[in-house]
């Protein structure tokens, strides 16, 4: 279970860190007014500062939140069941390419995770890369990553 308070604090910390990073990075670009006009870092510096200040405000507000659940443990299981395979899929793309990865991803999610019937899972898992190939590589001539595996195999 994750409480709303924890979620608010995490998000505010996240945005606040981003704001701080923007502020620091913009100072390197130079802020203020020079003969050439407004320095490159000025505008991002101001936006970073606004993010930082508003995040601190949100942090304070979040800290006052009560501990009521925002994500229950069953919600969390569902979230992980969706996100973890998806993240593995993205991580696998440079290695085995979009086509193989998407097939494995569909097969794994349907057959293993959700115990969907194997023949149907196989069918969907096979149809997905074929559809991707036809739409992107054939119709719109967008080359999708084939991965290191394809290089080794010589595709």
């Amino acid at each position, binding site marked *: 279970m994750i409480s709303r308070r924890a979620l608010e604090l995490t998000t505010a910390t996240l945005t606040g860190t981003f704001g701080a990073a923007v502020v620091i990075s913009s100072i390197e670009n130079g802020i203020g007014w020079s003969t050439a006009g407004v320095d*490159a870092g000025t505008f991002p510096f101001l*936006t970073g500062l606004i993010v930082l200040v508003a995040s601190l405000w949100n942090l304070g507000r979040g800290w006052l939140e009560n501990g009521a659940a925002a994500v229950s443990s069953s919600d969390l299981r569902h979230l992980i069941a969706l*996100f973890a395979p998806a993240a593995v899929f993205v991580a696998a793309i440079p290695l085995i390419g979009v086509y193989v990865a998407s097939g494995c991803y569909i097969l794994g999610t349907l057959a293993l995770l959700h115990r*969907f019937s194997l023949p149907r899972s196989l069918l969907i898992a096979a149809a997905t890369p074929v559809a991707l190939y036809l739409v992107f590589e054939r119709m719109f001539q967008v080359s999708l990553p084939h991965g290191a595996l394809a290089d080794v195999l010589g595709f």
Partner: protein
Amino acid sequence: MDNVESLLHGFTIAITLPHLALMLVGVLLGILVGVLPGLGAPNGVSLLLPLTFGMQPVSAIILLSSMYWGALFGGSVTSILFNIPGEPSSVATTFDGYPMARDGRATTALATAFGSAAFGALVGVVLITFLAAWVAQVALAFGPPEYFAVYFLAFASFVGMGGAPPPKTVVSLAAGFAIAAIGIDTVSGSVRLTMGIDELVKGISFVVAVMGLFGIGELLLAVEEEVQAKAVSSRIDWREVFRTLLDLPRHGWALLRSAAIGCWMGITPGGPTAASFMSYGIAKRFSPRSARFGQGEAEGIISPETADHAAGTSALLPMLSLGIPGSATAAVMMGGLMIWGLNPGPMLFIEQKDFVWGLIASMYVGNIVAVVLVLLTVPIFAALMRIPFFIIAPLIFIICTVGAYSVSNSYLDVVLMLGFGIVGYLFKKLSYPLAPLVLAIVIGDKAEDAFRQAMLMSKGSLAIFFSNALVTTLVLAGIALLLLPLVLQVAHMHTTTKPVLD
């Protein structure tokens, strides 16, 4: 009438066979993304965007805007039949649409929704037809300070009227501006905010951000809610459709009021979602049948639907004539315009007459196409909803991944999309608004340029934003909007503490 003449010329561009075909495809794809949870108008349009790079701009915008109309209609279908809003802007339609459909009047509910939606869209397009060119004419006189003031006003109205907690809106907005600044600075040529990642020199595309924020974020939310599609019958009784449509004028006042709310919220960037909620709330408050709201009252469908579509349509007015999009989807389309080499803003009406009037004419035709198609395809798309979510979810994820990749053939974009997905989930969960974030990413550079040019004109003095009546009014209006939530809060505290004092 100059506008009517231009519009008629626009029709000769819009009503050609290839363009009608594009409308058909766009609307169908739009209904599809509108129906599917996790895919919505903003990321549907961004998915399609990389595929339009080879097209004529006018054909591309017809395809994308038709998709937008389709998505607006598709979102209402699932709201009414399944009690699942396919789009955030059709949440308010579930309040009375689903109860009416559950009572065995699904056709009446759908026809009421589509009829009032079409009316809302029509009012929006008529407004664009007669106002857009005039606004552009006025805007031609704008210099950099005026432009920056208009941007400021647009963003202040998010804070003041968006409905989300103001500090959260501010975080969303300012973070968007910072993301827009990543990469090479167009003025000085220096590299900004790449945090040591060389590939970020090219900047972060708004398409990648939209795909993550709306696509992945929405999926994560949907899986949590465990979307269970329990449909009521989706059979369409055509005689009932016509009876309902003929009956609509009886609700003339509700239609007009909702269209007015929608247009206002679309032009000031409040967006369709806020418009539909506001319209529903006002209808419920002032209707003599107020007690029947929530149990399948016709005006409970008419009000949010009319406002939703009026706002969605009129959101294109400021995009075309000022270069400021009125909704997240309009922001994505405007990003497209810039990629196609057009410069959204008043010059469009002079330099790209065919584009502008072709688009406006196509909005009339596209909405008619959308109403007819959505009625014809309701049973098909309703069947689609019965596919279990655990099958749909990975497919949508793959589509978003490939969409993010195809923007510039970069794997980093896919990773960024995943990151934006987590942010989108957290933001939605905690009611941080996403639309200002996307808008800021799209127009961040333009706003910054306007600011820097204004500063150059004044040699670094902020007094330039108070140098004439127009710019002063705009800036003061913006400041007033920023302070509005604060004033309301103080007023609220005053009224609620009063009984205690007594």
